[in-house]
Protein backbone atom coordinates (compact mmCIF):
# COMPACT_ATOMS: atom_id res chain seq x y z
CA UNK A 1 0.00 0.00 0.00
CA UNK A 2 2.81 2.35 0.93
CA UNK A 3 4.72 1.49 -2.24
CA UNK A 4 1.67 2.34 -4.31
CA UNK A 5 1.54 5.75 -2.70
CA UNK A 6 5.21 6.37 -3.43
CA UNK A 7 4.70 5.48 -7.09
CA UNK A 8 1.65 7.71 -7.28
CA UNK A 9 3.51 10.63 -5.79
CA UNK A 10 6.52 10.01 -8.02
CA UNK A 11 4.31 9.82 -11.09
CA UNK A 12 2.38 12.95 -10.29
CA UNK A 13 5.48 14.95 -9.48
CA UNK A 14 7.14 13.77 -12.72
CA UNK A 15 4.09 14.95 -14.68
CA UNK A 16 4.09 18.26 -12.78
CA UNK A 17 7.77 18.93 -13.41
CA UNK A 18 7.28 18.12 -17.10
CA UNK A 19 4.28 20.48 -17.23
CA UNK A 20 6.16 23.36 -15.63
CA UNK A 21 9.09 22.94 -18.03
CA UNK A 22 6.70 22.91 -20.97
CA UNK A 23 4.79 25.91 -19.64
CA UNK A 24 8.00 27.90 -19.69
CA UNK A 25 9.36 26.68 -23.03
CA UNK A 26 6.28 26.22 -25.16
CA UNK A 27 2.83 26.60 -23.55
CA UNK A 28 0.99 25.34 -26.66
CA UNK A 29 2.48 21.90 -26.16
CA UNK A 30 1.20 21.86 -22.60
CA UNK A 31 -2.33 22.84 -23.62
CA UNK A 32 -2.51 20.25 -26.38
CA UNK A 33 -0.91 17.66 -24.15
CA UNK A 34 -3.51 18.16 -21.44
CA UNK A 35 -6.32 17.96 -23.97
CA UNK A 36 -4.93 14.71 -25.37
CA UNK A 37 -4.42 13.35 -21.87
CA UNK A 38 -8.09 14.01 -21.15
CA UNK A 39 -9.17 11.85 -24.07
CA UNK A 40 -6.87 9.04 -23.03
CA UNK A 41 -7.90 9.16 -19.39
CA UNK A 42 -11.61 9.24 -20.20
CA UNK A 43 -11.40 6.09 -22.27
CA UNK A 44 -8.90 4.28 -20.05
CA UNK A 45 -10.97 4.73 -16.87
CA UNK A 46 -13.71 2.26 -17.82
CA UNK A 47 -11.00 -0.24 -18.73
CA UNK A 48 -9.32 0.42 -15.39
CA UNK A 49 -12.63 -0.52 -13.78
CA UNK A 50 -13.07 -3.75 -15.74
CA UNK A 51 -9.45 -4.86 -15.85
CA UNK A 52 -8.20 -3.34 -12.63
CA UNK A 53 -11.06 -4.04 -10.24
CA UNK A 54 -12.67 -7.28 -11.44
CA UNK A 55 -9.80 -8.55 -13.67
CA UNK A 56 -11.61 -9.08 -16.95
CA UNK A 57 -9.35 -8.67 -19.99
CA UNK A 58 -11.46 -7.01 -22.65
CA UNK A 59 -9.75 -6.60 -26.02
CA UNK A 60 -13.00 -5.21 -27.46
CA UNK A 61 -12.76 -2.06 -25.35
CA UNK A 62 -11.89 0.38 -28.14
CA UNK A 63 -14.37 -1.30 -30.48
CA UNK A 64 -17.15 -0.71 -27.95
CA UNK A 65 -16.22 2.97 -27.95
CA UNK A 66 -16.39 2.92 -31.74
CA UNK A 67 -19.82 1.28 -31.68
CA UNK A 68 -21.00 3.91 -29.18
CA UNK A 69 -19.72 6.70 -31.42
CA UNK A 70 -21.62 5.24 -34.38
CA UNK A 71 -24.75 4.84 -32.25
CA UNK A 72 -24.50 8.44 -31.22
CA UNK A 73 -23.90 9.48 -34.82
CA UNK A 74 -27.04 7.74 -36.02
CA UNK A 75 -29.12 9.05 -33.11
CA UNK A 76 -27.95 12.57 -33.92
CA UNK A 77 -28.56 12.37 -37.65
CA UNK A 78 -31.92 10.65 -37.27
CA UNK A 79 -33.43 12.73 -34.50
CA UNK A 80 -31.44 15.92 -35.00
CA UNK A 81 -30.04 15.80 -31.50
CA UNK A 82 -26.80 17.35 -30.31
CA UNK A 83 -24.18 14.65 -29.60
CA UNK A 84 -23.80 15.91 -26.05
CA UNK A 85 -27.54 15.29 -25.50
CA UNK A 86 -27.33 11.99 -27.36
CA UNK A 87 -24.78 10.86 -24.77
CA UNK A 88 -27.70 9.96 -22.48
CA UNK A 89 -29.55 7.54 -24.81
CA UNK A 90 -26.22 6.21 -26.12
CA UNK A 91 -25.04 5.51 -22.60
CA UNK A 92 -28.25 3.67 -21.79
CA UNK A 93 -28.14 1.60 -24.98
CA UNK A 94 -24.49 0.78 -24.37
CA UNK A 95 -25.32 -0.37 -20.84
CA UNK A 96 -27.58 -3.04 -22.31
CA UNK A 97 -25.20 -3.85 -25.16
CA UNK A 98 -22.47 -4.41 -22.57
CA UNK A 99 -24.88 -6.59 -20.62
CA UNK A 100 -25.60 -8.69 -23.72
CA UNK A 101 -21.93 -9.00 -24.69
CA UNK A 102 -21.00 -10.01 -21.18
CA UNK A 103 -23.83 -12.49 -20.62
CA UNK A 104 -23.51 -14.19 -24.00
CA UNK A 105 -19.75 -14.49 -24.17
CA UNK A 106 -17.36 -13.18 -21.54
CA UNK A 107 -19.30 -14.61 -18.58
CA UNK A 108 -18.52 -18.12 -19.83
CA UNK A 109 -14.77 -17.58 -19.73
CA UNK A 110 -14.43 -16.24 -16.18
CA UNK A 111 -13.34 -19.60 -14.82
CA UNK A 112 -11.37 -20.64 -17.92
CA UNK A 113 -7.67 -19.92 -18.51
CA UNK A 114 -6.80 -16.32 -19.30
CA UNK A 115 -5.90 -17.28 -22.85
CA UNK A 116 -9.53 -18.12 -23.65
CA UNK A 117 -10.73 -14.72 -22.46
CA UNK A 118 -8.10 -12.97 -24.56
CA UNK A 119 -8.99 -14.82 -27.75
CA UNK A 120 -12.71 -14.54 -27.07
CA UNK A 121 -12.73 -10.77 -26.57
CA UNK A 122 -10.49 -10.52 -29.60
CA UNK A 123 -13.28 -12.27 -31.52
CA UNK A 124 -15.84 -9.89 -30.00
CA UNK A 125 -13.74 -6.94 -31.17
CA UNK A 126 -13.66 -8.39 -34.65
CA UNK A 127 -17.42 -8.95 -34.71
CA UNK A 128 -18.11 -5.39 -33.55
CA UNK A 129 -15.80 -3.66 -36.01
CA UNK A 130 -16.80 -5.87 -38.93
CA UNK A 131 -20.52 -5.52 -38.22
CA UNK A 132 -20.17 -1.75 -38.29
CA UNK A 133 -18.13 -2.11 -41.48
CA UNK A 134 -20.97 -4.19 -42.93
CA UNK A 135 -23.69 -1.69 -41.98
CA UNK A 136 -21.94 1.64 -42.36
CA UNK A 137 -19.01 0.79 -44.71
CA UNK A 138 -15.54 2.06 -43.96
CA UNK A 139 -16.28 5.61 -45.10
CA UNK A 140 -15.31 8.09 -42.34
CA UNK A 141 -18.15 10.04 -40.76
CA UNK A 142 -18.14 13.29 -38.89
CA UNK A 143 -20.61 15.68 -37.30
CA UNK A 144 -19.81 19.36 -37.75
CA UNK A 145 -20.71 21.57 -34.81
CA UNK A 146 -20.19 25.30 -34.35
CA UNK A 147 -19.21 25.39 -30.73
CA UNK A 148 -16.36 22.92 -31.21
CA UNK A 149 -14.25 25.49 -33.04
CA UNK A 150 -14.44 28.13 -30.30
CA UNK A 151 -10.98 29.29 -29.31
CA UNK A 152 -9.31 31.56 -26.81
CA UNK A 153 -6.06 33.49 -26.62
CA UNK A 154 -3.99 33.96 -23.51
CA UNK A 155 -0.92 36.08 -24.07
CA UNK A 156 0.50 34.81 -27.35
CA UNK A 157 -1.01 31.36 -27.10
CA UNK A 158 -4.30 30.60 -28.76
CA UNK A 159 -6.02 27.26 -28.43
CA UNK A 160 -9.39 25.53 -28.72
CA UNK A 161 -11.54 25.81 -25.61
CA UNK A 162 -13.84 22.97 -26.47
CA UNK A 163 -11.13 20.33 -26.21
CA UNK A 164 -10.96 20.91 -22.47
CA UNK A 165 -14.26 19.05 -22.32
CA UNK A 166 -12.26 15.80 -22.38
CA UNK A 167 -10.18 16.47 -19.25
CA UNK A 168 -13.40 17.61 -17.58
CA UNK A 169 -15.14 14.43 -18.67
CA UNK A 170 -12.26 12.33 -17.34
CA UNK A 171 -12.50 14.10 -13.99
CA UNK A 172 -16.26 13.43 -13.84
CA UNK A 173 -15.76 9.75 -14.70
CA UNK A 174 -13.09 9.41 -12.03
CA UNK A 175 -15.27 11.05 -9.40
CA UNK A 176 -18.25 8.87 -10.28
CA UNK A 177 -16.18 5.70 -10.24
CA UNK A 178 -14.49 6.45 -6.94
CA UNK A 179 -17.82 7.30 -5.33
CA UNK A 180 -19.30 4.12 -6.79
CA UNK A 181 -16.47 1.90 -5.53
CA UNK A 182 -16.18 3.46 -2.08
CA UNK A 183 -19.76 4.26 -1.13
CA UNK A 184 -22.17 1.92 -2.88
CA UNK A 185 -22.86 -1.64 -1.87
CA UNK A 186 -22.23 -3.10 -5.31
CA UNK A 187 -19.03 -1.07 -5.65
CA UNK A 188 -17.64 -2.46 -2.44
CA UNK A 189 -18.72 -5.91 -3.54
CA UNK A 190 -16.82 -5.41 -6.78
CA UNK A 191 -13.55 -4.84 -4.93
CA UNK A 192 -14.14 -8.00 -2.91
CA UNK A 193 -14.96 -10.03 -6.01
CA UNK A 194 -11.84 -8.72 -7.74
CA UNK A 195 -9.64 -9.79 -4.86
CA UNK A 196 -11.13 -13.21 -4.31
CA UNK A 197 -14.20 -14.37 -6.25
CA UNK A 198 -14.61 -17.59 -4.28
CA UNK A 199 -14.29 -15.87 -0.94
CA UNK A 200 -16.77 -13.23 -2.04
CA UNK A 201 -19.25 -15.95 -2.97
CA UNK A 202 -18.84 -17.60 0.40
CA UNK A 203 -19.64 -14.42 2.31
CA UNK A 204 -22.86 -14.09 0.31
CA UNK A 205 -21.97 -11.63 -2.43
CA UNK A 206 -23.79 -12.23 -5.69
CA UNK A 207 -20.64 -12.60 -7.75
CA UNK A 208 -22.28 -13.04 -11.15
CA UNK A 209 -24.45 -9.98 -10.66
CA UNK A 210 -21.44 -7.96 -9.58
CA UNK A 211 -19.44 -8.88 -12.69
CA UNK A 212 -22.42 -8.11 -14.89
CA UNK A 213 -23.07 -4.71 -13.35
CA UNK A 214 -19.42 -3.68 -13.44
CA UNK A 215 -19.09 -4.62 -17.08
CA UNK A 216 -22.35 -2.93 -18.05
CA UNK A 217 -21.46 0.18 -16.12
CA UNK A 218 -18.10 0.37 -17.87
CA UNK A 219 -19.89 -0.03 -21.19
CA UNK A 220 -22.22 2.82 -20.25
CA UNK A 221 -19.26 5.09 -19.51
CA UNK A 222 -17.73 4.13 -22.85
CA UNK A 223 -21.08 4.97 -24.43
CA UNK A 224 -21.06 8.47 -22.95
CA UNK A 225 -17.48 8.93 -24.07
CA UNK A 226 -18.35 7.74 -27.58
CA UNK A 227 -20.88 10.55 -27.88
CA UNK A 228 -18.27 13.10 -26.89
CA UNK A 229 -15.76 11.50 -29.23
CA UNK A 230 -17.94 12.07 -32.29
CA UNK A 231 -18.10 15.83 -31.59
CA UNK A 232 -14.40 16.16 -32.27
CA UNK A 233 -13.18 13.28 -34.43
CA UNK A 234 -14.32 11.52 -37.55
CA UNK A 235 -15.17 7.86 -37.02
CA UNK A 236 -14.59 4.72 -39.06
CA UNK A 237 -14.81 1.03 -38.11
CA UNK A 238 -11.11 0.66 -37.27
CA UNK A 239 -10.95 3.76 -35.07
CA UNK A 240 -11.32 1.80 -31.85
CA UNK A 241 -8.36 -0.55 -32.14
CA UNK A 242 -5.66 1.85 -31.04
CA UNK A 243 -7.75 2.91 -28.05
CA UNK A 244 -7.90 -0.65 -26.78
CA UNK A 245 -4.12 -0.71 -26.80
CA UNK A 246 -3.74 2.75 -25.34
CA UNK A 247 -6.19 2.06 -22.54
CA UNK A 248 -4.47 -1.19 -21.73
CA UNK A 249 -1.08 0.52 -21.65
CA UNK A 250 -2.37 3.30 -19.40
CA UNK A 251 -4.02 0.89 -16.98
CA UNK A 252 -0.84 -1.21 -16.85
CA UNK A 253 1.20 1.94 -16.34
CA UNK A 254 -1.06 3.24 -13.58
CA UNK A 255 -0.94 -0.09 -11.80
CA UNK A 256 -3.82 -2.53 -11.80
CA UNK A 257 -6.60 -1.21 -9.59
CA UNK A 258 -5.19 2.29 -9.13
CA UNK A 259 -7.86 4.49 -10.73
CA UNK A 260 -6.58 8.01 -9.93
CA UNK A 261 -3.16 7.16 -11.30
CA UNK A 262 -4.75 6.58 -14.73
CA UNK A 263 -5.00 10.37 -14.96
CA UNK A 264 -1.29 10.71 -14.22
CA UNK A 265 -0.35 8.04 -16.77
CA UNK A 266 -2.53 9.75 -19.37
CA UNK A 267 -0.82 13.07 -18.66
CA UNK A 268 2.61 11.55 -19.22
CA UNK A 269 1.49 9.98 -22.49
CA UNK A 270 -0.42 13.04 -23.70
CA UNK A 271 2.39 15.48 -22.94
CA UNK A 272 5.07 13.25 -24.45
CA UNK A 273 3.02 12.80 -27.61
CA UNK A 274 2.32 16.47 -28.03
CA UNK A 275 6.01 17.17 -27.46
CA UNK A 276 7.00 14.82 -30.30
CA UNK A 277 4.30 16.24 -32.54
CA UNK A 278 5.73 19.73 -32.14
CA UNK A 279 9.08 18.58 -33.55
CA UNK A 280 9.28 19.01 -37.35
CA UNK A 281 8.49 15.71 -39.13
CA UNK A 282 7.63 14.34 -35.70
CA UNK A 283 3.94 13.61 -36.34
CA UNK A 284 4.57 10.25 -38.05
CA UNK A 285 6.70 9.10 -35.15
CA UNK A 286 4.20 9.92 -32.37
CA UNK A 287 2.85 6.36 -32.16
CA UNK A 288 6.39 5.23 -31.33
CA UNK A 289 6.12 7.03 -28.01
CA UNK A 290 3.14 5.01 -27.07
CA UNK A 291 4.38 1.62 -28.25
CA UNK A 292 7.79 2.24 -26.75
CA UNK A 293 6.12 3.23 -23.50
CA UNK A 294 3.86 0.18 -23.39
CA UNK A 295 6.81 -2.18 -23.82
CA UNK A 296 8.94 -0.41 -21.24
CA UNK A 297 6.08 -0.34 -18.74
CA UNK A 298 5.13 -3.98 -19.21
CA UNK A 299 8.72 -5.17 -19.02
CA UNK A 300 9.64 -3.10 -15.99
CA UNK A 301 6.50 -4.22 -14.16
CA UNK A 302 7.12 -7.87 -14.92
CA UNK A 303 10.73 -7.62 -13.78
CA UNK A 304 9.73 -5.88 -10.59
CA UNK A 305 7.15 -8.54 -9.78
CA UNK A 306 9.76 -11.27 -10.31
CA UNK A 307 12.10 -9.81 -7.71
Amino acid at each position, binding site marked *: MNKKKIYTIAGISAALVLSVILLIIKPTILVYGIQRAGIYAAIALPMALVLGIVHIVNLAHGEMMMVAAYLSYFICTTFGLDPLVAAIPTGIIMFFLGLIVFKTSIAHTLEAPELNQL*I*LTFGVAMVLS*QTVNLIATSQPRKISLDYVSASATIGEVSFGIYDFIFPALAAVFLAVLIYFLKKTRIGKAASAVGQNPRGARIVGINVDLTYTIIFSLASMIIGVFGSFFITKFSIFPAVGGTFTMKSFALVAMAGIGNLPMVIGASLVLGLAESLVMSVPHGAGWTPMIF*FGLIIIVI*LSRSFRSKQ
Partner: protein
Amino acid sequence: MSSTVQKNKTWPVIFGIVGVIVIILPFFTGPYVQSIGRTVITYMILAISWDMLIRSGQLSFGLAGFFGLGSYAAVLSAVNLHFNPFVSILFAAVVAGLMAFLVGAVVLRLRGMYFAITTLALGEIFRIIIHNWTSVTGGPNGKLLPKLAFDGASIPTYAMMVVFALVIIALSEYFKRSKIHYALTAIRDNEIVAKSSGINIYKYLLIAFTVTAAIQGAAGAGFAQLYGFVTPESSFNANYTLIPLAMALLGGMYSTWGPVIGAVLLGVLGEFLKLYIPYGHLVVYGIIIILVLLFMPQGIVGMAGKLLKKGESHE
Protein backbone atom coordinates in the same frame (compact mmCIF):
# COMPACT_ATOMS: atom_id res chain seq x y z
CA MET B 1 -5.03 -36.48 -29.24
CA SER B 2 -2.16 -37.25 -31.58
CA SER B 3 -2.41 -40.93 -30.77
CA THR B 4 -5.97 -41.13 -32.12
CA VAL B 5 -4.83 -39.53 -35.36
CA GLN B 6 -1.94 -41.92 -35.69
CA LYS B 7 -3.93 -45.06 -34.98
CA ASN B 8 -6.86 -44.14 -37.12
CA LYS B 9 -6.92 -45.26 -40.72
CA THR B 10 -9.46 -42.61 -41.79
CA TRP B 11 -7.13 -39.62 -41.55
CA PRO B 12 -4.46 -40.68 -44.06
CA VAL B 13 -7.22 -41.40 -46.59
CA ILE B 14 -8.77 -37.95 -46.10
CA PHE B 15 -5.42 -36.22 -46.40
CA GLY B 16 -4.51 -38.30 -49.41
CA ILE B 17 -7.67 -37.16 -51.20
CA VAL B 18 -7.12 -33.52 -50.21
CA GLY B 19 -3.48 -33.77 -51.31
CA VAL B 20 -4.42 -35.09 -54.74
CA ILE B 21 -6.99 -32.28 -55.15
CA VAL B 22 -4.37 -29.70 -54.20
CA ILE B 23 -1.88 -31.07 -56.71
CA ILE B 24 -4.20 -31.43 -59.70
CA LEU B 25 -6.07 -28.18 -58.96
CA PRO B 26 -3.94 -25.88 -61.16
CA PHE B 27 -4.35 -28.09 -64.23
CA PHE B 28 -8.12 -27.83 -64.26
CA THR B 29 -8.71 -24.26 -63.18
CA GLY B 30 -7.78 -20.77 -64.21
CA PRO B 31 -5.39 -18.30 -62.62
CA TYR B 32 -8.17 -16.95 -60.38
CA VAL B 33 -8.60 -20.20 -58.47
CA GLN B 34 -4.83 -20.60 -58.35
CA SER B 35 -4.47 -17.15 -56.79
CA ILE B 36 -7.11 -18.05 -54.19
CA GLY B 37 -5.17 -21.26 -53.56
CA ARG B 38 -1.96 -19.30 -52.99
CA THR B 39 -3.71 -16.92 -50.59
CA VAL B 40 -5.26 -19.80 -48.65
CA ILE B 41 -1.89 -21.56 -48.45
CA THR B 42 -0.22 -18.40 -47.17
CA TYR B 43 -2.79 -18.16 -44.40
CA MET B 44 -2.38 -21.87 -43.73
CA ILE B 45 1.35 -21.42 -43.18
CA LEU B 46 0.67 -18.53 -40.82
CA ALA B 47 -1.97 -20.53 -38.97
CA ILE B 48 0.42 -23.45 -38.43
CA SER B 49 3.14 -21.13 -37.20
CA TRP B 50 0.74 -19.48 -34.75
CA ASP B 51 -0.30 -22.90 -33.51
CA MET B 52 3.31 -24.01 -33.05
CA LEU B 53 3.83 -21.22 -30.54
CA ILE B 54 0.47 -21.49 -28.75
CA ARG B 55 1.35 -25.10 -27.90
CA SER B 56 3.55 -23.53 -25.24
CA GLY B 57 0.61 -21.45 -23.97
CA GLN B 58 2.04 -18.23 -25.39
CA LEU B 59 -0.52 -16.28 -27.43
CA SER B 60 1.19 -14.18 -30.08
CA PHE B 61 -0.51 -11.26 -31.82
CA GLY B 62 2.72 -10.46 -33.64
CA LEU B 63 2.04 -12.41 -36.85
CA ALA B 64 1.31 -9.37 -38.99
CA GLY B 65 4.47 -7.71 -37.66
CA PHE B 66 6.81 -10.52 -38.67
CA PHE B 67 4.86 -11.08 -41.88
CA GLY B 68 5.35 -7.43 -42.86
CA LEU B 69 8.96 -7.43 -41.73
CA GLY B 70 9.62 -10.48 -43.91
CA SER B 71 7.90 -9.03 -46.95
CA TYR B 72 9.92 -5.81 -46.64
CA ALA B 73 13.17 -7.70 -46.07
CA ALA B 74 12.56 -9.69 -49.26
CA VAL B 75 11.64 -6.70 -51.40
CA LEU B 76 14.39 -4.42 -50.10
CA SER B 77 17.05 -7.10 -50.47
CA ALA B 78 15.88 -7.75 -54.04
CA VAL B 79 15.87 -4.04 -54.89
CA ASN B 80 19.09 -2.98 -53.22
CA LEU B 81 21.21 -6.13 -53.14
CA HIS B 82 19.77 -7.73 -56.31
CA PHE B 83 19.00 -10.96 -54.51
CA ASN B 84 17.43 -13.77 -56.46
CA PRO B 85 13.72 -14.18 -55.46
CA PHE B 86 14.36 -17.45 -53.64
CA VAL B 87 17.39 -16.14 -51.84
CA SER B 88 15.37 -13.09 -50.80
CA ILE B 89 12.71 -15.36 -49.26
CA LEU B 90 15.39 -17.16 -47.26
CA PHE B 91 16.89 -13.82 -46.32
CA ALA B 92 13.49 -12.64 -45.07
CA ALA B 93 13.17 -15.75 -42.91
CA VAL B 94 16.58 -15.07 -41.41
CA VAL B 95 15.80 -11.39 -40.76
CA ALA B 96 12.46 -12.16 -39.09
CA GLY B 97 13.96 -15.02 -37.10
CA LEU B 98 16.91 -12.95 -35.97
CA MET B 99 14.62 -10.10 -34.92
CA ALA B 100 12.43 -12.55 -32.99
CA PHE B 101 15.50 -14.02 -31.34
CA LEU B 102 16.69 -10.59 -30.21
CA VAL B 103 13.36 -9.29 -28.91
CA GLY B 104 12.32 -12.74 -27.71
CA ALA B 105 15.24 -12.78 -25.31
CA VAL B 106 13.48 -10.00 -23.43
CA VAL B 107 9.80 -10.43 -24.30
CA LEU B 108 9.59 -14.16 -23.54
CA ARG B 109 9.83 -13.43 -19.85
CA LEU B 110 6.25 -12.21 -20.12
CA ARG B 111 3.18 -14.42 -19.90
CA GLY B 112 -0.47 -14.32 -20.86
CA MET B 113 -1.98 -11.01 -21.82
CA TYR B 114 1.26 -9.14 -21.27
CA PHE B 115 3.02 -11.27 -23.87
CA ALA B 116 0.10 -10.97 -26.29
CA ILE B 117 -0.11 -7.18 -26.04
CA THR B 118 3.66 -6.77 -26.29
CA THR B 119 3.88 -8.84 -29.47
CA LEU B 120 1.10 -6.72 -30.95
CA ALA B 121 3.01 -3.57 -29.97
CA LEU B 122 6.21 -4.94 -31.53
CA GLY B 123 4.46 -5.48 -34.83
CA GLU B 124 3.17 -1.93 -34.72
CA ILE B 125 6.66 -0.63 -34.03
CA PHE B 126 7.99 -2.40 -37.12
CA ARG B 127 5.17 -0.85 -39.13
CA ILE B 128 5.79 2.66 -37.83
CA ILE B 129 9.52 2.48 -38.50
CA ILE B 130 8.95 1.25 -42.04
CA HIS B 131 6.20 3.82 -42.58
CA ASN B 132 8.43 6.71 -41.55
CA TRP B 133 11.81 5.60 -42.85
CA THR B 134 10.95 6.91 -46.29
CA SER B 135 14.46 7.05 -47.76
CA VAL B 136 14.91 3.29 -47.45
CA THR B 137 11.42 1.82 -47.45
CA GLY B 138 9.54 4.20 -49.71
CA GLY B 139 7.35 5.33 -46.80
CA PRO B 140 3.56 5.07 -47.20
CA ASN B 141 3.88 4.37 -50.94
CA GLY B 142 5.87 1.19 -50.41
CA LYS B 143 8.19 -0.44 -52.92
CA LEU B 144 7.84 -2.34 -56.15
CA LEU B 145 9.59 -5.63 -56.68
CA PRO B 146 11.74 -5.55 -59.85
CA LYS B 147 11.64 -9.26 -60.64
CA LEU B 148 9.08 -11.80 -59.46
CA ALA B 149 9.75 -15.45 -58.77
CA PHE B 150 9.06 -17.38 -62.02
CA ASP B 151 8.19 -13.97 -63.50
CA GLY B 152 4.87 -14.22 -61.69
CA ALA B 153 3.69 -17.27 -63.67
CA SER B 154 0.64 -18.69 -61.97
CA ILE B 155 1.22 -22.44 -61.83
CA PRO B 156 4.89 -22.42 -60.72
CA THR B 157 4.21 -19.89 -57.93
CA TYR B 158 1.27 -21.98 -56.81
CA ALA B 159 3.56 -25.02 -56.76
CA MET B 160 6.14 -23.02 -54.83
CA MET B 161 3.61 -22.18 -52.12
CA VAL B 162 2.42 -25.81 -51.95
CA VAL B 163 6.00 -26.97 -51.42
CA PHE B 164 6.49 -24.24 -48.81
CA ALA B 165 3.36 -25.39 -46.98
CA LEU B 166 4.49 -29.03 -47.08
CA VAL B 167 7.82 -28.05 -45.55
CA ILE B 168 6.03 -26.17 -42.75
CA ILE B 169 3.64 -29.07 -42.15
CA ALA B 170 6.61 -31.42 -41.89
CA LEU B 171 8.36 -29.00 -39.55
CA SER B 172 5.27 -28.74 -37.36
CA GLU B 173 4.97 -32.53 -37.23
CA TYR B 174 8.64 -32.73 -36.32
CA PHE B 175 7.99 -30.24 -33.52
CA LYS B 176 5.13 -32.42 -32.32
CA ARG B 177 7.27 -35.54 -32.12
CA SER B 178 10.48 -34.04 -30.83
CA LYS B 179 11.69 -33.18 -27.37
CA ILE B 180 10.64 -29.58 -28.00
CA HIS B 181 6.99 -30.59 -28.04
CA TYR B 182 7.13 -32.23 -24.61
CA ALA B 183 8.93 -29.25 -23.20
CA LEU B 184 6.43 -26.78 -24.66
CA THR B 185 3.41 -28.81 -23.55
CA ALA B 186 4.86 -29.05 -20.08
CA ILE B 187 5.24 -25.27 -20.02
CA ARG B 188 1.62 -24.81 -21.06
CA ASP B 189 0.25 -27.28 -18.54
CA ASN B 190 2.24 -26.21 -15.54
CA GLU B 191 5.23 -23.98 -15.82
CA ILE B 192 6.43 -24.44 -12.26
CA VAL B 193 6.41 -28.22 -12.53
CA ALA B 194 8.17 -27.99 -15.90
CA LYS B 195 10.83 -25.78 -14.40
CA SER B 196 11.37 -27.96 -11.36
CA SER B 197 11.75 -31.07 -13.52
CA GLY B 198 14.76 -29.48 -15.14
CA ILE B 199 13.32 -28.19 -18.43
CA ASN B 200 15.01 -25.05 -19.66
CA ILE B 201 11.74 -23.26 -20.40
CA TYR B 202 13.36 -20.15 -21.68
CA LYS B 203 15.51 -21.97 -24.25
CA TYR B 204 12.60 -23.88 -25.75
CA LEU B 205 10.36 -20.83 -25.84
CA LEU B 206 13.08 -18.90 -27.61
CA ILE B 207 13.51 -21.68 -30.17
CA ALA B 208 9.77 -21.82 -30.81
CA PHE B 209 9.42 -18.04 -31.03
CA THR B 210 12.37 -17.69 -33.42
CA VAL B 211 11.30 -20.52 -35.68
CA THR B 212 7.68 -19.38 -35.92
CA ALA B 213 8.71 -15.78 -36.60
CA ALA B 214 11.06 -16.97 -39.35
CA ILE B 215 8.15 -18.89 -40.89
CA GLN B 216 5.96 -15.79 -40.71
CA GLY B 217 8.71 -13.72 -42.30
CA ALA B 218 9.15 -16.23 -45.10
CA ALA B 219 5.38 -16.29 -45.63
CA GLY B 220 5.43 -12.51 -45.96
CA ALA B 221 8.30 -12.75 -48.42
CA GLY B 222 6.46 -15.38 -50.44
CA PHE B 223 3.38 -13.18 -50.51
CA ALA B 224 5.43 -10.20 -51.68
CA GLN B 225 6.75 -12.39 -54.51
CA LEU B 226 3.19 -13.16 -55.55
CA TYR B 227 1.97 -9.58 -55.59
CA GLY B 228 5.15 -7.75 -56.55
CA PHE B 229 4.81 -4.82 -54.16
CA VAL B 230 4.78 -3.92 -50.48
CA THR B 231 3.15 -1.04 -48.61
CA PRO B 232 2.95 -0.58 -44.83
CA GLU B 233 -0.84 -0.86 -44.92
CA SER B 234 -1.02 -4.04 -46.99
CA SER B 235 2.01 -5.88 -45.60
CA PHE B 236 1.31 -5.17 -41.93
CA ASN B 237 -2.43 -5.62 -42.26
CA ALA B 238 -4.03 -6.87 -39.04
CA ASN B 239 -5.78 -9.53 -41.12
CA TYR B 240 -2.54 -11.51 -41.14
CA THR B 241 -2.97 -11.88 -37.41
CA LEU B 242 -6.75 -12.26 -37.26
CA ILE B 243 -7.44 -14.70 -40.05
CA PRO B 244 -4.81 -17.37 -39.19
CA LEU B 245 -5.92 -17.22 -35.56
CA ALA B 246 -9.53 -17.93 -36.54
CA MET B 247 -8.38 -20.71 -38.86
CA ALA B 248 -6.30 -22.48 -36.24
CA LEU B 249 -9.08 -22.16 -33.67
CA LEU B 250 -11.74 -23.56 -35.98
CA GLY B 251 -9.59 -26.46 -37.12
CA GLY B 252 -8.34 -27.22 -33.64
CA MET B 253 -5.44 -25.83 -31.65
CA TYR B 254 -2.34 -27.77 -30.59
CA SER B 255 -2.10 -29.88 -33.74
CA THR B 256 -0.76 -29.64 -37.27
CA TRP B 257 -3.89 -30.73 -39.08
CA GLY B 258 -6.22 -28.41 -37.20
CA PRO B 259 -4.77 -25.25 -38.73
CA VAL B 260 -4.55 -26.95 -42.12
CA ILE B 261 -8.21 -27.93 -42.13
CA GLY B 262 -9.27 -24.59 -40.65
CA ALA B 263 -7.32 -22.73 -43.31
CA VAL B 264 -8.86 -24.67 -46.17
CA LEU B 265 -12.41 -24.27 -44.85
CA LEU B 266 -12.23 -20.65 -43.74
CA GLY B 267 -9.98 -19.58 -46.60
CA VAL B 268 -12.36 -20.85 -49.26
CA LEU B 269 -15.37 -19.54 -47.32
CA GLY B 270 -13.70 -16.14 -46.95
CA GLU B 271 -12.94 -15.82 -50.66
CA PHE B 272 -16.49 -16.84 -51.45
CA LEU B 273 -17.97 -14.30 -49.01
CA LYS B 274 -15.69 -11.57 -50.32
CA LEU B 275 -17.49 -11.79 -53.66
CA TYR B 276 -20.92 -11.27 -52.16
CA ILE B 277 -20.14 -9.06 -49.15
CA PRO B 278 -17.21 -6.81 -50.01
CA TYR B 279 -17.48 -4.90 -46.73
CA GLY B 280 -17.34 -6.66 -43.43
CA HIS B 281 -17.25 -10.27 -44.61
CA LEU B 282 -14.70 -10.89 -41.87
CA VAL B 283 -17.55 -10.69 -39.35
CA VAL B 284 -17.92 -14.42 -40.03
CA TYR B 285 -14.39 -14.99 -38.75
CA GLY B 286 -15.15 -13.11 -35.53
CA ILE B 287 -18.34 -15.09 -34.98
CA ILE B 288 -16.45 -18.33 -35.59
CA ILE B 289 -13.78 -17.36 -33.05
CA ILE B 290 -16.46 -16.73 -30.42
CA LEU B 291 -18.55 -19.80 -31.17
CA VAL B 292 -15.59 -22.15 -31.31
CA LEU B 293 -14.22 -20.85 -28.04
CA LEU B 294 -17.55 -21.18 -26.28
CA PHE B 295 -18.84 -24.45 -27.68
CA MET B 296 -16.07 -26.34 -29.45
CA PRO B 297 -12.76 -25.51 -27.79
CA GLN B 298 -11.02 -28.44 -29.45
CA GLY B 299 -12.02 -27.41 -32.95
CA ILE B 300 -12.95 -29.67 -35.82
CA VAL B 301 -10.03 -32.05 -35.42
CA GLY B 302 -10.78 -32.52 -31.74
CA MET B 303 -14.47 -33.08 -32.41
CA ALA B 304 -13.79 -35.49 -35.26
CA GLY B 305 -11.29 -37.36 -33.13
CA LYS B 306 -13.91 -37.74 -30.41
CA LEU B 307 -16.59 -38.90 -32.86
CA LEU B 308 -14.28 -41.42 -34.49
CA LYS B 309 -13.29 -42.79 -31.12
CA LYS B 310 -16.94 -43.17 -30.19
CA GLY B 311 -17.63 -44.99 -33.46
CA GLU B 312 -14.79 -47.40 -32.82
CA SER B 313 -15.87 -48.26 -29.31
CA HIS B 314 -19.37 -49.11 -30.55
CA GLU B 315 -18.10 -51.60 -33.10
